[in-house]
């Protein structure tokens, strides 16, 4: 008997503050004007996407002690813009990245519960942690967390927020005019949490929201990150959008669920994915090449080389050969506020490898950065892209994708108009929303309907 095909989940990542976003394109609009957000969100909703996704960074990036000026800089406050988007959409989920290092559970829980009320049950929280004193300079807390403390604080932060969400059951407000009883229970919202990172007690002041708790995303990739997700997240925002790496990650994470008493369908794997469409596959490939070159200007190429070399390379010609000097290896890094520099664990080896690649291909610095940088995940005609996305999902490399267009705000339009109808024709993507809340779109149970031990564990 044939299994029915898996249903694909699709989300839209508002173009971010890195060089994926091509701000120099004539089509590129404002990244801050609310109309850009409205256009992007309404396109996603028109295409029946599950949710919109916003990233966040709490300090402007710097390189060589100066604010990094080559990429889009600046973004709105996550909660505030999501609340406004709730007014111009009806079904689209609203996912915000919110840091567990430079916030407090009481305030964040209020904000998510409020957003959930104000959106009729469409809020989701991508829980991230910070590692750096650099970002801490903007906050009361200051300082930073050692690597090993980050997840322990994040875990306790999430557990504490869940205690706050659950401190109202949902039946406390009776508002009986005749008897004058507004609350059934004088203790509504009572909570006590005593832990290593948070020692708080009192009364939570937002009544139970439609989803009970926001949908929880996790984005980290470390072993602790995967375990954190397996224990309590509803979805993972991963970076493995190739078939083999995706399948390996998918299997690894889904296999971790059983020990928390959870089923594989209770945690969705949603990699970030870029795409370029064309009328034909050949045209799409050509466009993809052009986009990659626009994403890496000469100036950007030098800065990206500095991520590895960890020294000032501004005197080098981007159209010339790679530097002869070796990377500077040390505790401090030329680039601050940027997670990706930590990917280069052995800069000397990376530099050696890159020099060999450049020599073999006769590449300049810019050629090298263009060619070693991330290629778009899905490149092709709408039919090719629809088929590939479906193949990935049916082959358990993902449960769907969080698409990252490279143009603000129109970068999703073509996908919505051309690819989504093909997925719908294949019967693997919804033609109407499943219900009012984000949990409905994602096929996730309401927390009140989960067995008690699972609620407690998460």
């Amino acid at each position, binding site marked *: 008997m044939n299994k029915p095909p898996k249903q694909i989940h699709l989300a839209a990542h508002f173009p971010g503050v890195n060089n994926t976003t091509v*701000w*120099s394109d004539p089509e590129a609009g404002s990244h*801050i*004007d*609310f109309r850009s957000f409205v256009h992007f969100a309404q396109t996603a909703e028109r295409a029946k996407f599950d949710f919109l996704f916003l990233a966040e960074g*709490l*300090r*402007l990036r710097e390189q060589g002690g100066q*604010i990094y*000026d080559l990429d*889009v*800089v*600046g*973004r*709105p*406050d996550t*909660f*505030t*813009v999501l*609340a*406004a988007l709730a*007014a*111009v959409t009806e079904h689209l989920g609203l996912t915000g990245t919110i840091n567990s290092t430079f916030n*407090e559970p*009481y*305030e964040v829980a*209020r904000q998510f519960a*409020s*957003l959930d*009320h*104000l*959106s*009729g049950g469409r809020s989701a929280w991508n829980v991230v942690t910070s590692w750096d004193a650099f970002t801490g*300079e*903007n*906050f*009361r807390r*200051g300082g930073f967390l050692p690597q090993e403390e980050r997840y322990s604080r994040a875990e306790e932060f999430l557990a504490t927020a869940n205690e706050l969400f659950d401190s*109202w059951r949902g039946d406390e*407000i009776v*508002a009986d*005019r005749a008897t*004058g*009883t*507004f*609350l*059934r*229970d004088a203790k*509504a*919202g009572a909570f006590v949490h005593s832990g290593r990172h948070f*020692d*708080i*007690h*009192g*009364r939570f*002041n*937002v*009544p139970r929201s439609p989803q009970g708790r926001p949908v929880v995303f996790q984005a980290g990739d470390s072993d602790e990150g995967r375990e954190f997700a397996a224990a309590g997240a509803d979805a993972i925002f991963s970076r493995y959008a190739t078939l083999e790496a995706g399948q390996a990650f998918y299997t690894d994470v889904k296999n971790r669920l059983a020990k928390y008493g959870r089923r594989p369908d209770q945690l969705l794997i949603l990699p970030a994915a870029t795409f370029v469409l064309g009328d034909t596959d050949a045209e799409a490939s050509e466009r993809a090449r052009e986009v990659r070159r626009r994403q890496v*200007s000469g*100036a950007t190429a030098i800065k990206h080389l500095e991520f590895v070399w960890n020294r000032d390379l501004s005197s080098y010609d981007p159209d010339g050969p790679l530097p002869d000097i070796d990377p500077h290896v040390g505790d401090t890094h030329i680039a601050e506020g940027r997670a990706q520099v930590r990917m280069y664990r052995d800069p000397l080896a990376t530099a050696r490898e890159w020099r060999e690649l450049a020599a073999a291909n006769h590449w300049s610095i810019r050629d090298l950065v263009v060619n070693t940088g991330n290629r778009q995940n899905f490149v092709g005609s709408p039919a090719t892209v629809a088929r590939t996305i479906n193949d990935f999902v049916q082959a358990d490399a993902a449960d769907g994708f969080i698409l990252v267009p490279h143009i603000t705000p129109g970068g999703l339009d073509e996908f919505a108009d051309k690819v989504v109808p093909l997925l719908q024709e294949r019967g693997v993507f919804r033609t109407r929303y499943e219900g009012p809340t984000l949990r409905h779109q994602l096929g996730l149970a309401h927390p009140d309907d989960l067995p008690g031990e699972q609620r407690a564990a998460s």
Partner: protein
Amino acid sequence: MSTQTSPPSSALHLAVALDGTGWHPASWREPVAEPGSLYSAGYWAELVAEAERGLLDFVTFEDGLGPQSTHFLDPDERTDQVRGRLDAVLVASRVAPLTRHIGLVPTVVATHTEPFHIAKAIATLDHVSTGRAGLRVQITARPNEAAHFGRRTIPRIDGYESLAAREVIGDLFDEAADYVEVVRRLWDSWEDDAEIRDAATGRFIDRDKLHYIDFEGRHFSVRGPSITPRPPQGQPVVSALAHWTVPYRLVGRQADIGYVTPHHTEQVRAIVAEVRAEQAAAGRPGTPLHVFADLVVFLDSDPAAAAARRERLDALAGEPYTSDARIFTGTPAQLADLLQEWQSAGLTGYRLRPGVLGHDLSAITRGLVPELQRRGAFRRAYEADTLRGLLGLARPANRYATA
């Protein structure tokens, strides 16, 4: 753009303070109240739409970091009044796209929150509303609210009168002044033309037009710049409720609007003089600073009906309603008389707290406003597109910009 008709020079400014079903604790029991909808977007959208139909300058949204309480310092565990509320900034933002002219001023508690987060939140509210954002800054000395955060203990006070209590409160207000200073600097930390999108050099911004704010104070240090570009108004409107010298100082130093609570005309004069003195002492005598009076209002076309309504609510509550602000009960015309009398004693506007939102808000917009318009004392159309514009405040220059 709206029609740029100037309001009459004798015009006063009107705001409404939104809180729950209204300011009387029994207001939720009125047939017109919708206590079951308090946590839905539609409820707030309707209230703000009504305020906008009445051409009001702005609405404020109350907030707090703990349950509402009748006790000045502790939770009261009462079950006969509205408890629980949504985050005010998010409510304001949720209604912003549904409105076009009215200002949106959420309450922000400085004591336990991050100035960096609030600066970008209000800047974003300003972007989302294209220039209609403000904030009302508040402090809290409640021990239970401190325990919700667990980061600091605030010495327990025994009332507002003792020297020790005033020291504690004074300290919290000093922190709030620092907080507003940080927020204001962060709003200016991007110059208006910082975004250059210069394809030739590949630069998206001119980094010389982004500024570290390098604030160092007793309670926090903040480096900056903000992650959010300068809001459309440059500086969204800052306001605070003030009952005595220390908060008057905060208003004098940092606010665009102070809400004060006089009970009679002589008090109006005295308070306005004190606020103006603080403003001068803070070295900003020429800066426009509005002084609004807060008034709780019960309005009916027949004064006896208004009084009877208030009595009925008091009976339901089991005690007479009292307030820090003067409680006005009467007709829209009588209220207009009072507003004009106090205006001539030095006030520039009012923040009205409707006793029952379902009744008294529309009495303001459909009764008081037409009455004031007849007297030439209130606008007949919105004359500006931003809150600063409605309040007659110019868009300020950026403190970091070099001429």
